[in-house]
């Protein structure tokens, strides 16, 4: 094993897949020699693979995602780097109208493309650079959505995403990029659609998404001191969602809290909560709780942003209410 950052894990995944498969290439803003991606995801890859496969684009989100679609439909495996997920608003048509090409054409093509983008608040970047829009993305048919929380998952899941024959949205929370974690020396893959139990427990199931996994684990440690045992489930992918892992845990604990950093209305937490209410109601001993952000845009000021983001205290409060 080796200790590397979340970002290095992403870098290694892309590097390994580019080496393995000549049809994998990167296109996006600032991915080239100067920056290697906004936060450095692709550092070194330009020197290794050249301008032909690490394609820096002008600021043209529509041309990036539309271009990725055209390339994927004709035999390439593009990685479209879209910077902040907020910028998907610029290429909203490609996202909601064009990525469904396979279905519209009666299943005759494959679209093997991966979109990577940063999500999340915590760095004081305000509304247009801090959202996660997970619920919004889950509502779009035809996408797969990956939300890793640690370096190990990020690497194994991104390698799988780059081998997928479907559009995958791979989301990197800004607060995770510098966190380090253990990663095997040898190659490994993690399949999409398999949740991971990040902490075993018996009293309450907490489904936490992306960066929220870390806050849930911190809260779980505090709750343990009060004698409350929390099971933290990291779904790792929202589409496909490992429903059985969540249902299995709820069968054991009878209680479910979902921690998701986005406005509660229409969130990923809302969808997961509806699924469990529909499919596992009989195992629940208490109402499902959602620990989310308020239904507001993301504020800028550190004080306001801290209030906006779901935190340990909010999770502890929610758990305590149903104990």
């Amino acid at each position, binding site marked *: 094993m080796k200790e590397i950052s979340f970002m290095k894990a992403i870098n290694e995944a892309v590097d390994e897949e580019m080496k393995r498969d000549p049809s994998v290439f990167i296109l996006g803003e600032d991915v080239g020699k100067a920056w290697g991606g906004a936060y450095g995801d692709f550092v070194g890859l330009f020197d290794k693979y050249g301008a032909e496969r690490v394609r820096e684009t002008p600021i043209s989100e*529509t041309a990036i995602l*539309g271009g990725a679609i*055209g390339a994927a439909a004709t035999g390439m495996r593009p990685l479209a780097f879209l910077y902040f997920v907020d910028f998907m608003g610029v290429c909203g048509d490609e996202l909601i109208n064009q990525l469904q090409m396979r279905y519209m054409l009666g299943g005759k093509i494959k679209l093997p493309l991966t979109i990577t983008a940063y999500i999340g608040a915590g760095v004081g970047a305000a509304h247009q650079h801090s959202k996660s829009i997970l619920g919004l993305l889950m509502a779009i048919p*035809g996408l797969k959505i990956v939300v890793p929380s640690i370096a190990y998952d990020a690497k194994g899941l991104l390698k799988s995403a780059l081998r997928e024959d479907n559009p995958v949205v791979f989301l990197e929370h800004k607060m995770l990029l510098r966190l380090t974690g253990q990663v095997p020396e040898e190659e490994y893959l993690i399949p999409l659609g398999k949740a991971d139990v990040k902490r075993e427990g018996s009293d309450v199931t907490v489904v936490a998404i992306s960066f929220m996994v870390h806050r849930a684990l911190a809260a779980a440690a505090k709750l343990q001191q009060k004698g409350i045992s929390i099971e933290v489930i990291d779904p790792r992918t929202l589409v496909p969602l490992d429903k059985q892992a969540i249902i299995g845990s709820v069968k054991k604990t009878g209680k479910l809290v979902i921690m998701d950093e986005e406005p509660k209305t229409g969130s990923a937490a809302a969808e997961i909560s509806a699924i469990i209410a529909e499919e596992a109601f009989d195992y629940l001993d208490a109402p499902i709780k959602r620990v989310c952000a308020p239904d507001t845009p993301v504020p800028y000021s550190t004080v306001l942003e801290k209030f906006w983001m779901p935190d340990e205290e909010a999770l502890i409060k929610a758990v305590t209410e149903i104990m």
Partner: protein
Amino acid sequence: MPIEKEKLIEMYTTMVRIRTFEERALKGFTAGDINVVHLYIGEEATATGACANLRPDDYITSTHRGHGHLIAKGGKTDRMMAELYGKKTGYNKGKGGSMHIADVDIGILGANGIVGAGIPIAGGAALSAKMRGTDQVVICFFGDGAINTSRFHEGVNLASIWKLPVVYVIENNQYAESTPISYAVKIANLADRAAAYGIPGVTVDGNDVLAVYEAVGKAVAKARRGEGPTLVECKTYRYQGHFEGDKQTYKTKSEVEEWKKKDPIPRFRKKLIEMGVLTEKEAREIDQKMQKELDKAVKFTEESPFPAPEETLEDVYA
């Protein structure tokens, strides 16, 4: 270089095939068997002249008014009609309809219900062709309406800086839905916009199939040599409304009459007869042959089953 006789006859046949198909589609729409259609009648010379320059392995992206492009690229009228009727035997198994009709096997990357959406997709396919080391070319068709969308700017610029093998064919049919192009832009020739991207721009009579063939032919050859994109504007006219049911109050009678005089099919037919390529009789035989082909296509469609309702759930993921 003179165009071979066979090629000329093939182009005439294609134009008649498109019009006959559209007339039958109109019938199907009127009878209530087809939902939404945007017909290509009057613009046949553009798709035909442009696609006559392509190889089977070249690509096109098409539009909401895409039947003509598909036929010109080699699409089969029976499977097309079946798609319009929502039948299982349609090109898209009834999942796309008129606005998404495509045969991927002959390089068609979709018609598109969103104006201008094919522009970045065409760029991506051209990039793919270049990266895979082929000399495939992409023709990207779009209407005058698309020229004011952001993706025109993003897509053409990117293709220009990367020298992608794509030819943009603007079908300037004078109207974006109900809005005249004379209102929507301040320039007389849309091809002038090419200068902003450092690529050649050329305006041709889109109702003259040979003019289109020649202009697009040069652009295709240039793209195939790896010398980047060209913007070709074809000035033409749509005889039907934007959609079927459009009352077309925005058109004037005299304007329609003027354009009908320039109808690309009788015009080309007359020319071929003058050139001695076809006799009146031979031309009539082609027309009749197309009627028969479409009779068969409609029969095939009517005899085809609808998809099973549960097929709704298939083809979301590979």
